[in-house]
């Protein structure tokens, strides 16, 4: 009898150890998944407001933009240009803000490739929603811009030329 007891305890502890190890591995893999899932480049030090913008912006992006540009921002062939890696996005902050509301037409060169299909604007987007999408777009994938203020977006939106005006250069930086 005396001999059996420690053995049993040993078995229990090793089972517990195994279980704990399994749990640890599971937690680690979960963590890995989570890290892979978000493409957020928004730093943890940014304000709560910025983080809220980002989360809202992601939802709005999925709702309004992802059907054409894809959820992961890769676009589709030479039909819909990419957003994830785009020199246009990098270089034309104001134009990007404007095209969400007013759309964009005509030939557009993105990463050296020519696109030419019209993107319809979404006039119903509010300034705040555009600020949120902009926060998402500019802090995801290849981009890291961080702080985007609503006032800044409103100012840009007030300067946008109408989509009927083909001269976009005045809105581009």
């Amino acid at each position, binding site marked *: 009898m005396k001999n059996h007891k420690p053995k049993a305890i040993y078995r229990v502890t090793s089972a517990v150890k195994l279980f704990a190890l399994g749990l640890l591995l599971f937690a680690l893999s979960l963590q890995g998944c989570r890290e892979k899932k978000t493409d957020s480049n928004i730093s943890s030090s940014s304000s709560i407001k910025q983080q809220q913008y980002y989360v809202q912006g992601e939802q709005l992006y999925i709702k309004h933009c992802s*059907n054409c540009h894809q959820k992961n921002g890769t676009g589709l062939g030479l*039909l819909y240009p990419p957003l994830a890696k785009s020199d246009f996005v990098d270089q034309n902050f104001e134009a990007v803000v404007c095209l969400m509301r007013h759309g964009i037409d005509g030939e557009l060169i993105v990463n050296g490739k020519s696109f030419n299909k019209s993107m319809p604007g979404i006039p119903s987007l509010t300034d705040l929603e555009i600020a949120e999408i902009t926060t998402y777009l500019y802090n995801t994938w290849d981009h890291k811009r961080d702080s985007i203020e609503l006032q800044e977006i409103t100012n840009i939106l007030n300067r946008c030329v109408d989509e009927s005006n083909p001269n976009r250069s005045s809105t581009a930086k």
Partner: protein
Amino acid sequence: MNKSLVNGQQSIVRGAASLLIVFSILTSACTKKENPLPIFGEREVEGTDTVYHTIGEFKFVDQDSAAVTNDTFKDKIYVADFFFTSCRTICPIMKTQMLRVYDSIQNEPDVLLLSHSIDPEYDTVGLLHDYAERLGVKSDKWHFVTGSKEDIYKIAQTSYFATAMEDKSEPDGFIHSGAFLLIDKDRRIRGKYDGTKEEDVNRLLADIQRLKKEYVKEN
């Protein structure tokens, strides 16, 4: 060494081997018993023959101005859908998914794709040509067709059971389903998938392989 122990070990090995054989027979039996894909639509029994619903006659023009008819798909499995180039809602997603199908059948000479424009007046041959080129696909594998609006709507509704009609109150001016339809070599519908859902298209990819096997067996 103890003889009986060696014997014991041998018999364990033997036991394991025979178990493995039984197991592999069982699993191979399972794969052979895989249910055939369903056949969609009404059927009529004429004497001893069952007559199934089949895709009606059609004649359209593709992105290279070539005529596309039932003959184009003779002895071919194909996937059909309905779209239009100016569609902003579900079509880009459908085309992303169809592109996956296209990539997966690159080395399958007996599988083709057929996309019908439901806005054929706007989607001219030239526009479809540009669209296909920008998508980066070849016409010998993926036909984008246009034709008379009446013909396209009729075949959508009566042959493919797909919704396609004009509706000015819709954002794009059309109502249409995002369905992908799998058609066998006998013009029968064997599967219907939501072309906007990745998982559904995964099922389509698997079903294409299943359908191919059916014809291997019959020949």
